[in-house]
């Protein structure tokens, strides 16, 4: 009788020990998984925050007065504002006339760190023909913004 009781007690204690041991192991494994799955803090991505057109830019490369109508002999400036940082990025302006006739493409390589501004400009010694124009801005080959303007 005593022997049988002892056997039951022994089996119960052994079972509990095994169960506790397995639980501890699985918790450790779960903790390890959680820790390794945490991604590194993301770097501030470079984004174009604004595009402005004007006849002149200041030393900060931002237009001094925003306009969308120009005279033929004006220099047309577009100022591209960016935020974020990147070791190397390429901004491009693509200027077109009326139904898409290509006027000019200019690239500017930048390594921004925080808020920056980049200007592109076009002019024509004998005057830009009257009509509707468009300037499209690309960041690393991807079109990000465009602006329409008129020359008259």
């Amino acid at each position: 009788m005593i022997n049988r009781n002892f056997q039951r007690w022994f089996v119960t204690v052994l079972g509990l020990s095994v169960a506790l041991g397995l639980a501890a192991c699985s918790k450790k494994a779960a903790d390890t998984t959680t820790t390794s799955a945490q991604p590194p803090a993301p770097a501030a991505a470079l984004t174009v925050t604004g595009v402005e057109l004007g006849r002149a830019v200041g030393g900060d490369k931002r237009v001094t007065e925003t306009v969308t109508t120009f005279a033929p002999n004006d220099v047309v400036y577009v100022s591209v504002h960016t935020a974020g940082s990147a070791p190397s990025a390429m901004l491009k302006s693509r200027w077109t006339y009326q139904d898409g006739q290509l006027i000019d493409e200019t690239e500017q390589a930048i390594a921004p760190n925080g808020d920056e501004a980049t200007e592109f400009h076009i002019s024509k010694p004998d005057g830009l023909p009257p009509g509707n124009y468009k300037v499209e801005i690309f960041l690393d080959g991807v079109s990000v913004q465009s602006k329409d303007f008129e020359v008259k």
Partner: protein
Amino acid sequence: MGFSGDSDDKQKPKPDFSNVESGSSSTAPAPAKAPSTAQPKTYVVKQGDNLSKIAKQEYGNANEWRRIYDANRDLIKNPDLIHPGQTLKIPPAEKA
């Protein structure tokens, strides 16, 4: 019979933008130079362009046209014949 307005519009020549002057500048610093991995500069051919004109614009010397031609042999069969819309690789200028 006097309905020539539409056909006149269609035949109207496109404006010549070959003498457009352009440029750019930025408050952001330029990326650190990495010659082995840097992307070559490109130039999109406009109406009225020729290799000498592009070389003059890119290098300040029209006689450097052959550098552009050599870098684009796969695209240019005849150096006297380039077409608007072609994207040419512009090799970096040689340092003196």
